[in-house]
C-alpha cells in the first residue's frame, strides 16, 4: 500500500514538473507585453525634397518600471543596397531594369550595416525620436520641433534619474530602409533581465495633392516585437541566448538540457530569453481583391527580419522561408524564398509573379482572404537560430493612379510554437 502511495506521488510529481516546465517553454516573443529586447522590424525614411511622396518613421519607447531607469543599447541596421561601382548611389537590390538606378552591368549590392547607440530612459518615462533626425538632450537640441530627451543637466526625474549620455543618430542614409533592435542593459551595458520596455513604430507618409502646397498624410502604426527575458538566467556575456535551451553538439544535440553534464560531448545552451516563433501566421486579403467596403484594391506588404544577429562578426542571417497559403476553400499552395538579413516585399513578389498569376493573388485563389504560414528553414551555422519575426502593412489603391491616394494600416503578425534550437544575438 505504501509503495503504491509513493508511486502515485512520484507520478504526480512528474506530472506537475512536466506541466510546470511546459508553462515556461511555451512563452514566446510578444508584441503586447513589456519585454527586455525590442525589435522594430521596419524603419523607413525618405524625406528628400522635391518628391511626390515623403516618408518618415516615429519611434516611441516607454520604460514601464515604476522606479528603475533602464539603458537601451540600440542597433539600426541599414539594409539599403548600393551600386557596386558607385557606392554612394542607393538602390534596391531586388529591382531590375529601368527602376534600378545603377548603370547597366553594375549590380546593386544588398547592404547590412549596423550603427549602434545608447539611450537612457528614466522610470515610467516615454521617449520618442524621428528616424530621420535622431535625438539628443533638449538642452542641446537646436530645433524645438524635433522630439528630444528632456531630462538632462537642467532637470532630473525620480531620485535624480536623467537622460544624460543619450544620443540617437539620424539614420545613416536618406532614403533609408532597415530595422532597429534595442536591448535592455544596465549602466555598464551588460544585458539585463528586466521586462520593462514597450515600443511603437509609426510610419507617416506625405503625398503631394493636386492642390499646390498641399500634402495628404497617411499614418500606420504597429507595436514593436518584444523578446522577454527569463529572470535570473542572463549570464551577462555578449551572446544573448534566445529560446531553445538544448544541447549544442554532442550525442544529445538539440535535446533539452539544464547543465553541461546533460550534453555528453557538447555544451548546454541555457536560454536567457524566451524563444522566437517557429511559425509566423499572417491573415491577409489576397492581392488585387476589392475591399468589400470601399471597393478599393487591396495589397499587402510583408517585412521579415531574423531573430538572430551577429553584430560582432557582421554576418547576416540567410535562410529559406517556406510559405504555406490557404484560401477560404481550404485549398493550399506553397512557395519559398531565400532571404538574407531583411526583406520587404509585396506578397505577389514572394513568388516572383504578378497579381494575375501569383499564389497570393485573389485571381488565383478566388476568395477575398487567406492565411499564410511562414517558417524559416534551419541552417547549419550554429551561431544562428533561423527564426524570423515580421510585420505586415495593408494598402488601398484606386483603379486610376491619378485618383487621390488612399489609406494604409500596419499590424503585427501572429506567432505559433517555438523551437528546440536557440537564436543568438552576438553583441560587439
Amino acid at each position: 500500500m505504501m509503495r503504491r502511495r509513493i508511486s502515485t506521488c512520484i507520478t504526480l510529481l512528474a506530472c506537475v514538473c512536466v506541466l510546470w516546465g511546459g508553462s515556461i517553454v511555451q512563452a514566446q516573443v510578444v508584441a503586447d507585453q513589456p519585454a527586455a529586447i525590442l525589435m522594430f522590424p521596419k524603419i523607413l525614411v525618405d524625406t528628400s525634397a522635391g518628391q511626390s511622396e515623403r516618408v518618415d518613421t516615429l519611434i516611441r519607447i516607454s520604460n514601464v518600471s515604476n522606479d528603475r531607469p533602464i539603458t537601451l543599447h540600440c542597433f539600426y541596421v541599414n539594409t539599403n543596397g548600393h551600386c557596386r561601382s558607385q557606392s554612394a548611389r542607393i538602390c534596391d537590390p531586388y529591382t531590375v531594369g529601368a527602376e534600378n538606378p545603377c548603370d547597366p552591368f553594375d549590380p546593386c549590392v544588398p547592404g547590412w550595416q549596423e550603427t549602434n547607440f545608447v539611450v537612457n530612459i528614466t522610470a515610467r518615462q516615454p521617449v520618442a525620436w524621428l528616424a530621420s533626425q535622431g535625438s539628443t538632450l533638449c538642452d542641446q537640441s537646436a530645433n524645438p520641433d524635433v522630439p528630444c530627451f528632456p531630462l538632462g543637466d537642467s532637470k532630473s526625474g525620480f531620485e535624480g534619474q536623467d537622460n544624460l549620455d543619450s544620443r540617437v543618430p539620424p539614420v545613416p542614409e536618406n532614403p533609408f530602409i532597415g530595422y532597429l533592435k534595442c536591448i535592455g542593459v544596465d549602466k555598464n551595458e551588460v544585458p539585463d533581465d528586466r521586462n520593462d520596455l514597450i515600443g511603437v513604430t509609426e510610419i507617416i507618409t506625405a503625398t503631394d495633392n493636386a492642390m499646390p502646397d498641399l500634402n495628404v498624410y497617411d499614418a500606420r502604426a504597429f507595436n514593436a516585437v518584444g523578446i522577454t527575458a527569463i529572470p535570473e538566467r542572463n549570464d551577462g556575456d555578449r551572446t544573448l541566448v534566445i529560446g531553445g535551451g538544448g544541447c549544442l553538439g554532442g550525442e544529445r544535440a538539440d535535446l533539452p538540457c539544464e547543465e553541461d553534464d546533460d550534453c555528453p560531448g557538447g555544451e548546454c545552451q541555457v536560454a536567457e530569453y524566451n524563444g522566437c516563433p517557429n511559425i509566423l501566421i499572417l491573415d491577409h486579403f489576397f492581392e488585387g481583391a476589392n475591399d468589400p467596403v470601399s471597393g478599393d484594391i487591396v495589397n499587402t506588404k510583408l517585412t521579415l527580419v531574423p531573430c538572430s544577429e551577429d553584430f560582432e562578426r557582421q554576418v547576416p542571417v540567410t535562410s529559406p522561408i517556406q510559405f504555406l497559403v490557404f484560401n477560404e476553400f481550404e485549398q493550399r499552395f506553397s512557395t519559398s524564398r531565400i532571404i538574407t538579413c531583411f526583406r520587404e516585399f509585396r506578397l505577389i513578389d514572394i513568388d516572383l509573379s504578378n497579381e494575375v498569376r501569383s499564389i497570393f493573388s485573389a485571381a488565383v485563389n478566388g476568395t477575398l482572404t487567406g492565411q499564410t504560414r511562414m517558417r524559416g528553414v534551419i541552417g547549419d551555422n550554429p551561431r544562428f537560430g533561423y527564426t524570423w519575426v515580421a510585420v505586415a502593412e495593408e494598402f488601398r489603391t484606386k483603379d486610376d493612379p491619378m485618383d487621390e491616394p488612399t489609406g494604409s494600416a500596419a499590424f503585427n503578425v501572429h506567432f505559433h510554437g517555438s523551437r528546440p534550437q536557440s537564436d543568438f544575438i552576438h553583441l560587439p
Partner: protein
Amino acid sequence: MKGSTSGMVRYWSIAIASVLALTAGPSVADVTIERGSSIIVFPKVIFDSGAVTGKQPVDTIIQITNTSNSIVFAHCNYINALPVDPRFPPSETNPPRWQEVNFDIFLTKQQPTHWVVSSGRTQFPGDDVCYGDGNMVIERDCNGAGFDPGLIPLTTDPFAGELRCVEVDSSGAPINGNHLKGEATIVAQANQPAVGLVKTEISKYNALGILGLNTDLNSNNSDPVLCLGGGVRPGCRNGAEYNGCPDEVFLNHFAEGADNPVVTEFGDPSEVFTELTLVPCTQDLERQIRPKVTVQFLITNEFEDLFSASITVDCWGNFLLSEVAFSIFDEATLGTRFAQTRMTAPPEQPGFIGVAEEYHYAPFSNAPEESPVTRAALNLFGRGQRANGDIVTIQQAQ
C-alpha cells in the same frame, strides 16, 4: 478495500487539484494579440452608414482564422453598446442598449474567413469568385466566396460595440483549443470638403486572444461559466480555465492635441487625438448583467511628472482621452508631446482589455469636428494577471 479505494480517490483528487492550481499559477502569458486563442475579443466593431446619425460612413471587416488542422467551432456574440437613440450621447434617459446577438461559426482546417459587419455573411455556395484569364484580373469582387463559416447576422445601423467569440466543440460546449485568431479592419472615409479630399482611410488591429489553459488535458469543464484567471471561487470550482486579463494595461500615446513631428517636419500644422476603447473582461451574457469597471489612469509625461484620472466603463467604453478628465491629457497640461498611461482596475471589479486608435488631423481640418485625415489603430500592452480573475458566462444550451 473500500477504504483503500476512497483513499486513492482522495489522493488523486488532491493531486489533480494540485496540478490544476500549479498550472494555473505560473501562466506567464495573459491576454495576447499574437497567438491562437480559445476566446477572441474584438473590442471595437463599428458600422454607421450615416443614414441615422449623419456622420461619415464607417464599417468594419472581421477576419477570423482557424490555425489548426481540425475543424473548429466558435460561439460568437455581438454586443451593441450604442445608446437607445444613437444620435445622442448616452445618458440616464438614453441608456446604452447592451444588446447581444449571438451566432455560431465553424471553420475547416486552417480556414480563414471574413465578413463585413454591415452585411454579415450568407450561406450561399454560389458567391462569385475572383479570377483572371492569365493576362489580367477579370473579377476582383469576391466577398463571400469560399466555404461559408455559418450564417453571420447583419448588425443594426448604426452599430458600435464588441464581438467576442468562444471556441466550442460540435455540441457547443467550451473547449480549450487555442485555435482562433482574428483581425478587425475599420474602413472609413476621410472627407475634407474644403479642399475636395475624399480618401479611404483604414486602421487595423489584432483581436485580443485569451488562451485556454492546459490544452492537452482540456481542463475546461465545458460548462457555460468560463473562468479567466484567478483561483478556486464560486462558479470556478477548479480555478482558472483560461488565462487571466492583465493587471496593468499600458498605452504609449501623443498628448491630446499635440502635433505630429513628422507632419511638422514636412511644414504643415497637425493635431493628434487618441481614442480608447475598453471592455470589461467579465460578462454575463446569460443573465444580461452589464459589467462595470472603474478604470484608473496614471499618466507620466516625458519629464516623469505624474498625473491621474479615472473613468467608469459601463459595458463598453469608447472615448477620446481628452474626454476622460478635464484637460488632463491635453498637451498644454502635460507639457510634453508624448506620454505613457498606465491603466488599472480596483481588485474587486472586473479586469478590462482594449484597443487604441490615433486620429491625425492635418493640415487643413478643423479637429476634431471634421473627420481625421488619417487614423492608425494600436493594440495595448498588458502586464501581470488579475488576482481575482474574471468570469464570462455564455448562454446555456437549450
